[in-house]
């Protein structure tokens, strides 16, 4: 047991080893190897990998609540987006007077809408520590309040899934409103620098890539610690037989609440790392379809394995990048077909397939 959280987790060990290798190699291949060398990794690839890693962290967060707690959240995109907005607000404030209107106080879109002063909820976001705190606090608090309401009154199964969907849908509509003060449909964009580092420079991109890799590794280890502890056994018990768990004396709603909140915080961190790498955050991230897609990654990778979630996120997103370029007119057929086939043929996901091969080998 005490050999560490990675004991008996070959998938996790391999994943972390590969992650460490990539994190070491990619910066070298990007910065030190000349651009014309076949070994050179382009900045495009670095940003892309960084983006995939934030998705992987998001998928881990979803797998924690879905795979180990049985809560199918169709609203995790909301926590991701909120974390992203918190980071985006910091980046907006960092622009300072370099915006198109040169207003030192107000972001461009506020000048544009004739706002005279900064809304109260924008204060404090000029400080990185505050923004970093909000990245975790806002999604966490929302998840806590929402979870407290929902778990206390024992909303379960599809009912829970649908109201998480309602939550993210409502947030999407709200953030689309320009009156909300988050830039409406255009969202937040045109970022310049982060902690004084130019976001356009290769070194910053590498830095963000490494930060994402560390976050994924940290998130993975944290989740792994939870699921291998007795707490993890309780959550699986809740997943499999909720009322039985209650009858042996566990306050199911509290377990659900804390794990759900933790998962939301992870999703928020993923969002915060995502935004500086893609350069934009807008209400589209709240769209219910996005949240469903996250669940699909986890399902394809394999539920309740954590590393499967990472695998699924990487695979589906790489597939998307690749197919939208190669077969722009037909990639949805491939993606849709993949979803159907994996559900039918690989109920345990790819991780399940690997495990099965391992068992028969």
């Amino acid at each position: 047991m005490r050999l560490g959280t990675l004991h008996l987790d070959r998938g996790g060990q391999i994943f972390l080893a590969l992650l460490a290798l990539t994190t070491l190699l990619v910066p070298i291949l990007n910065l030190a190897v000349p651009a014309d060398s076949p070994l050179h990794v382009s900045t495009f690839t670095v940003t892309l990998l960084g983006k995939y890693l934030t998705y992987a962290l998001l998928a881990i967060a979803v797998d924690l609540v879905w795979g180990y707690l049985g809560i199918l959240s169709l609203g995790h995109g909301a926590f991701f987006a909120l974390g992203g907005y918190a980071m985006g607000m910091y980046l907006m404030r960092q622009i300072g007077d370099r915006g198109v209107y040169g207003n030192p106080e107000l972001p461009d879109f506020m000048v544009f809408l004739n706002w005279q002063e900064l809304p109260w909820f924008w204060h404090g976001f000029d400080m990185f520590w505050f923004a970093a705190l909000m990245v975790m606090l806002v999604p966490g608090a929302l998840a806590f309040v929402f979870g407290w309401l929902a778990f206390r009154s024992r909303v379960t199964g599809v009912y829970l899934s649908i109201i998480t969907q309602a939550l993210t849908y409502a947030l999407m509509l709200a953030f689309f409103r320009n009156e909300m003060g988050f830039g409406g449909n255009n969202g937040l964009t045109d970022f310049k620098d982060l902690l004084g580092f130019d976001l356009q420079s290769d070194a910053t991109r590498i830095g963000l890539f490494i930060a994402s890799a560390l976050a994924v590794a940290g998130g993975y280890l944290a989740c792994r610690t939870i699921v291998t502890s007795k707490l993890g056994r309780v959550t699986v018990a809740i997943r499999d037989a909720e009322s039985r768990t209650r009858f042996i004396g566990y306050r199911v709603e509290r377990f659900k609440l804390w794990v759900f909140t933790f998962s939301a915080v992870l999703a928020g961190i993923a969002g915060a790392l995502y935004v500086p790498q893609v350069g934009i955050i807008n209400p589209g991230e709240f769209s219910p379809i996005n949240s469903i897609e996250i669940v699909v990654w986890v399902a394809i990778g394999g539920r309740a394995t954590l590393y499967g979630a990472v695998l699924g996120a990487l695979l589906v997103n790489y597939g998307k990048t690749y197919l939208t370029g190669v077969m722009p007119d037909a990639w949805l057929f491939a993606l849709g077909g993949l979803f159907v086939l994996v559900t039918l043929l690989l109920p345990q996901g790819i991780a399940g397939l690997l495990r099965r091969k391992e068992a028969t080998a």
Partner: protein
Amino acid sequence: MKTLDTLRTTMRRDQVWEIMVPKTGLELDISHGTILYLEDISVTFDGFRAIDRLNLYIDAGELRCIIGPNGAGKTTMMDIITGKTRPDTGTAWFGQTIDLLRLSEPEIASVGIGRKFQKPTVFEHHSVMENLELAMAADKRVWPTLVARLTPEQHARIDAVLETIGLQAHRARRAGALSHGQKQWLEIGMLLMQDPHLLLVDEPVAGMTHQEMDRTAELLKSLAGRHTVVVVEHDMDFVRSIANKVTVLHQGSVLAEGTMDEVQNDARVIEVYLGGDEGH
């Protein structure tokens, strides 16, 4: 209207809000010799009266069997005691001091009532040992659970229970892979790990072979005395083999109570079991 009333009660100035009142009297008091009081309980589902003004008293340390035809309200009664179902009327007290109707399921479990379900529900994805570990009496709050490690005493206790239920050889096996009878025992083992004052056992021998049945009877009998055991069962032979006192439920209320012989000779019981068309 109902919300208005709630609001009015909430706003009463002479009262402290319910949530702020500390829950008192969670220590079991059985000084009067009775551990469970169910009085005047009624439950209705969709117009169907599942429990109809039920009165039932269980003495501390006794082994009580409850029988009755299908739909007599046996499982519903257990649901009420464990907090799964709230009755429309009536009171349910555990000992002298604990009002069961004000507690949630985990609270009821933690004051010392354990339950085995009709359909064996063990945690299928956990090993036998993990099942027992989860059920073990311990601090069951979130943070302590995260940092909990098994102490040597706890290991010893699990081993002891494993021996009692005869599953030592299967300790690392997935519970889902156990046979039906083994699951039943595992569930009883989980009950034991909880170390409850009152055990509610719903149809423990359904689907068991004769040998398994005998062992179960032994086990239950050995528990009585130190624990109070209430068994709901259909199998008359099994009931006869363990019970000294039997309660017959019919249409949601007590029809007869006494030793097995007494109830078997009770004219109303015979009528219900043989004369009625819903015989077993």
